[in-house]
Structures are given as structure tokens and as C-alpha cells.
């Protein structure tokens, strides 16, 4: 067994806990998880069955933690995990799983399959079987500060652009501000409108805010590939920045897994609770709305629907805020079938959109989203995750669907009452 493989097995042994043991012993091979997974439903290939994606983890569990399994291993009756096998599993663990979590809410015996995929990725990454694209992203985040190689000068360039466009100041490293705003590289690069929306909204709400020059990046691809050590480095930067600037709340941007990383995994990665709150931008906007701080005018005339990003809604618990905000600026808001926590993934989360090998299956899986949209026939699609936006646009383009996609924060900002 090679060194990296044996390290991988050690990691897998370490991450197996009572819940995982309980899950493996509960699975009755009913196959319902497959019917919840868009990669299976749109391709019809049983290999995409979610519980099958974690088979290597199950074998490690059986051979290391069950008496019968250990006896079997000792007698030479069971096959140990091989490097080749982990290599074969890359496709199932990274190309055709976005960690969307539908399987987890469907399993009748209660298996949290996405939890197991997340843990398996830890072993896969150590064994060298994570996709190159995401490994590169994680390295860049640790070395440069952003997975996409966005350095402070680029952020400053965007700030300059926004300040010129809006006539407002974008504070940087302002100590004592109430809110510290994180951005995702995606927004800095692709959607600069997000930052100008924030500037306008904060101005109207009368709240103090700041960016942090050492921790402007929210994206945490360590979480995606499953390298907790690197994920920890990334979170620590944010914690250090927030505590140094003495902010009350850190705002996670319109990015799916960034919220999961900082809000739900963050304290566990650094081993202590945070000294500040973490909220998603939608939660903050909804609080402003409820407190009467958001003054909007006018309504969107078009028929709108909302795509709930998996990491924010089902996996993040932010489900009502976006609906309240949509209703503030639209009288023609319709829900897709399977809305909110039941929503179907865009198909590109969890590192899949950065993975060239996954492009083909991702576009096939998109048929599920296409079916949802064909049913509700909106004029415009609103969402709150930069990655979802691009994945949706690419999917719509591929299937020749003429449907604009917009971000919710920008849409709210467009309706702000101008003084």
C-alpha cells in the first residue's frame, strides 16, 4: 500500500463516527436515494446512486470497526481498499455529486449521505484523487488568498469601479464597523454589481460596514475537495480579520458553499465558537426589511421564479428570507415545483462546475432544472448564488432557453428609493 493510500485510509478511519456507523448499518438497499439525485434521474445510470458513491467508506468502516469485518479481513476474505478503486470512485464522488443533500432528506432510514460524501472526500483528497481543478483552487486560496487567484489589487480595482459608478465609498479595514462583508471571487470577477448593490443598500439602511483586506474571500474550496486543514486556514483568516476589526456580524455573500463553510463548519474547523455572528446576506437584508430599513419602490412586472441554492436553503436553513424579499419587489412571483428545501440542484455546486471531466454529466443533469423551468415558464429566474447563476446560464444556453438570470441582492438594490 502506497504512503498516500495508507494516509487516506487513516483519515477515513478518523472521520468515521457513530452517525456514519449507524447509517451504514441502517441502509437496506432500497434505492430511494437514487430517485432523489438529479445525476441518476436524468441519466438513468444506477452507478450514480448516492449510497453507492460512498462504498469505499463503507468498506473501511466494515473492515476496521466491525468484529465480523475485522475477522473477515484477518482471514483474507475481504478486499482492502485499493488505490485503483479510489481512482475509479473519483467520478462518483467529485463529478456527479454536488453535495446538494437531497439524498439526505429522502432516505427512509435516515442516512445522511451527503455527510458521508463529505468525509469520503477527505480521504480521496489525501490519496491524490481529487480533481485537479479544485485542488488548484484550494492551493491558490491558501497561497494567494483566493481560489481564482484574485489578489487585493484586483479587489481594489473593482472597488474603484464601484465607487465611480455609485458615487459611494466602499470602506476597507474599518475598525468597529457593524458588518464585515465577505465576497466570493466569483462576484469580484463576474458580478461586480453585487458589491455596488451592497454599497447602496448599506447606505440606505444606515449601517456601518467594511471589507477586510486580509480576508475578503469567502469561498472555501477546502470544504469542497475535503481537505479540512486547508479549509481551516481559510476560515482562520476570516476569524482573525473579523476579530481584529471588532465587527459584530460577518456577512457571507451570495455564494452557496461559502455559507456552509463559514457558518456551519467554521467553528468546528478552528475548534472554538466565534466571537461574532455569521449571517447570509439574504438574512441580513430580510432583517433590514423587517425593521423597515429597506425602502423600495416599484414592482417587477415580469413573471419571476426563484432558484434556491442548495447550500443556502436546504443545507443552510435560509429559506424564508428570499421569499420575503422577492415579494417586496414582485407581485408576480411563482414557486417552482419542489421549492425551498426540496429544490433540485443546479448541478454545478460542490466543485463540479470547476471540474472539466464533469461537464458532460452536469449538462445532462441540468435537464431536471430545465423541466422545473419548463413547467413554471417564468420570464426571469432569480437566485442568490454566483456559481448557480453561471451554471444556470450555461445550462440555459446549452438547451437554447431564452431566460435571463439575475441575483436577488442586485434586484433589491435596483428598487431602492433614490434620495
Amino acid at each position, binding site marked *: 500500500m502506497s504512503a498516500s493510500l495508507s494516509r487516506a485510509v487513516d483519515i477515513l478511519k478518523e472521520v*468515521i*463516527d*457513530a*452517525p*456514519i*456507523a*449507524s*447509517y451504514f*448499518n*441502517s*441502509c*437496506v*438497499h*432500497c*434505492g*430511494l436515494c*437514487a*430517485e*432523489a439525485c438529479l445525476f*441518476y*434521474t436524468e441519466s*438513468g445510470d*444506477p*452507478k450514480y*446512486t448516492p*449510497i*453507492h458513491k460512498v462504498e469505499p467508506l463503507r468498506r473501511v468502516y466494515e473492515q476496521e*470497526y*466491525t*468484529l465480523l469485518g475485522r475477522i473477515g479481513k484477518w482471514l483474507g476474505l475481504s478486499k482492502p481498499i485499493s488505490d485503483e478503486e479510489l481512482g475509479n470512485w473519483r467520478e462518483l464522488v467529485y463529478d456527479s455529486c454536488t453535495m446538494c443533500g437531497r439524498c*439526505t*432528506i*429522502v*432516505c*427512509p*432510514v*435516515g*442516512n*445522511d449521505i451527503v*455527510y458521508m460524501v463529505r468525509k469520503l472526500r477527505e480521504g480521496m483528497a489525501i490519496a491524490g484523487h481529487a480533481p485537479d481543478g479544485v485542488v488548484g483552487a484550494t492551493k491558490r486560496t491558501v497561497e494567494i488568498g483566493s481560489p481564482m487567484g484574485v489578489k487585493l489589487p484586483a479587489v481594489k480595482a473593482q472597488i474603484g469601479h464601484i465607487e465611480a459608478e455609485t458615487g459611494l465609498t466602499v470602506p476597507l479595514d474599518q475598525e468597529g464597523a457593524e458588518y464585515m462583508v465577505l465576497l466570493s471571487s466569483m462576484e469580484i470577477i463576474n458580478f461586480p454589481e453585487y458589491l455596488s448593490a451592497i454599497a447602496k443598500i448599506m447606505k440606505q439602511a444606515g449601517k456601518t460596514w467594511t471589507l477586510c483586506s486580509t480576508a475578503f474571500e469567502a469561498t472555501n474550496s477546502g470544504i469542497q475537495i475535503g481537505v479540512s486543514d486547508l479549509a481551516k486556514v481559510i476560515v482562520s483568516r476570516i476569524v482573525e480579520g473579523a476579530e481584529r476589526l471588532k465587527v459584530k456580524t460577518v456577512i457571507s455573500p451570495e455564494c452557496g458553499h461559502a455559507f456552509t463553510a463559514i*457558518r*456551519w*463548519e*467554521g*467553528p*468546528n474547523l478552528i*475548534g*472554538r*465558537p*466565534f466571537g461574532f*455572528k455569521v449571517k447570509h446576506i439574504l438574512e441580513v437584508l430580510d432583517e433590514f426589511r423587517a425593521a423597515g430599513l429597506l425602502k423600495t419602490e416599484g414592482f417587477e412586472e415580469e413573471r419571476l421564479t426563484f432558484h434556491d441554492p442548495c447550500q443556502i436553503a*436546504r*443545507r*443552510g*436553513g435560509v*429559506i424564508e428570507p428570499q421569499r420575503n424579499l422577492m415579494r417586496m419587489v414582485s407581485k408576480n412571483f411563482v414557486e417552482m*415545483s*419542489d421549492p425551498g*428545501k*426540496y429544490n433540485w440542484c443546479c448541478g454545478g455546486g460542490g466543485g463540479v462546475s470547476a471540474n472539466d471531466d464533469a461537464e458532460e454529466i452536469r449538462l445532462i443533469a441540468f435537464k431536471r432544472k430545465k423541466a422545473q423551468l419548463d413547467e413554471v415558464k417564468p420570464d426571469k429566474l432569480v437566485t442568490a448564488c454566483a456559481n448557480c447563476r453561471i451554471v444556470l446560464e450555461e445550462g440555459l444556453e446549452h438547451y437554447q432557453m431564452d431566460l435571463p438570470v439575475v441575483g436577488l441582492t442586485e434586484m433589491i438594490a435596483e428598487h431602492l428609493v433614490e434620495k
Partner: protein
Amino acid sequence: MDAAELLNWVRGPGLQIAIAVFLLGTIWRLIEIYSLGRKPDLAERRHVPGASGWHTLVRRSIPIPGMFQRSTITYVAGYAFHLGLAVVVLLFAPHIKLIQDLIGLTWPALPSQFVDLMAVVTLVAMLVVLIDRIRQPVKRFLSTFEDWLTWAVTFLPVLTGYMAARHLLLPYTLMLSLHILSVELLLVLLPFTKLFHVFTVWPSRWFNGDIQGKKGVAV
């Protein structure tokens, strides 16, 4: 050994061995699984009514929107045989009497014609489940030897019990012995196969609901 001797054996030593293996096996397996423990979660949890492990224990029995249409046979046949088993095992007068002899508890039985009917429903449902496991691509793909074994080991007690109660095929004493023997086989295998989900489904659902509940999502 003639039929009467066999019956005495399965009712006596056989039953004792089976129950001992079942109880000791179950305790061992529960320790083996749950002693692995769980790290505490340091993230600040949300408190949303209805979102907790306890709620999920019950709520997970209800399919989420759309799933029933996608997997109708799985849900219908699955519920049918589970309910059927519960009725046949726990609400049949001779079984209740046995339990009373063993641990002193008793409760009212259902009329035997009704239990008879439920036994047939259970057998039919289990056959549907078997055929579906063979024909449905995902089930077929996932199935191992253990799936067929556990199906047989669950099917046989219901079949032999039904046949004994109706005096079918074999002389009653022999049929009854076979029925009790098949139950003993089930008891012995239960802790060491996927049948153990009888116990683990509850903590699994609880963990699942607890993790999602911390985030404020009721699943």
C-alpha cells in the same frame, strides 16, 4: 428425531440459544456502533419549531413531495409488508401468549381472520418487493447476497407460520417446528445483517434530523 422431539427442541434449547444470540448480538452491535461517538458541534444552532432529531424520527416515514410518484412500488410494498409484519407478529393471539410467557406483558389480539388476511398481504407485498429488487435497475445494482438472504429469512417465518395456522402441506407439528426454527434463524441473523436496521433506523433518523435541525431545516 421425530416431529414431537423436534418441536420440543425448537421450543426449548433452540429458542433459548436464538434469544441469547439475538440479545447478546444486539447489545454487542449497539455498543460497536454507538461507542464511536460524535464530535460536538460548535456552530451556533438555530431554534426552529419542528426542526429536530425527534421530529424526524416520525416525519421521515412520510415521503417528500414527488418521491411517492417516482417510487410508488417501493413505498407501497415496503409499508405493506412492514405493517403486515407488525400485525402478524404482535397482534396474533398465539404470539401474544408466547410473549406473555416470556416476559409477562400482554395486550389484546386481533381476530385471527384479520391476522390471516394480513399474513397474505405481507406475503404478497414481500413477493412484490423481491420482484422489484430483481427488475428495478438501481435495486438490482445495489443488491448483494445479503439482500436475498435477509429477504428469505424474513419471508420464511411468515410463510411457514401461515401454513402452520392453516394446516397446509405438512403435518401441523412439523410445520410448527419449521416455523419456529425459521424464526430462530431470523433472530440469530438479525443483529449481523441489514435487518439490524430495526434498531439503527431510530438513531440514524435522529442524527439526520438533529444535524439539519441545527440549521433550522425540518426534514
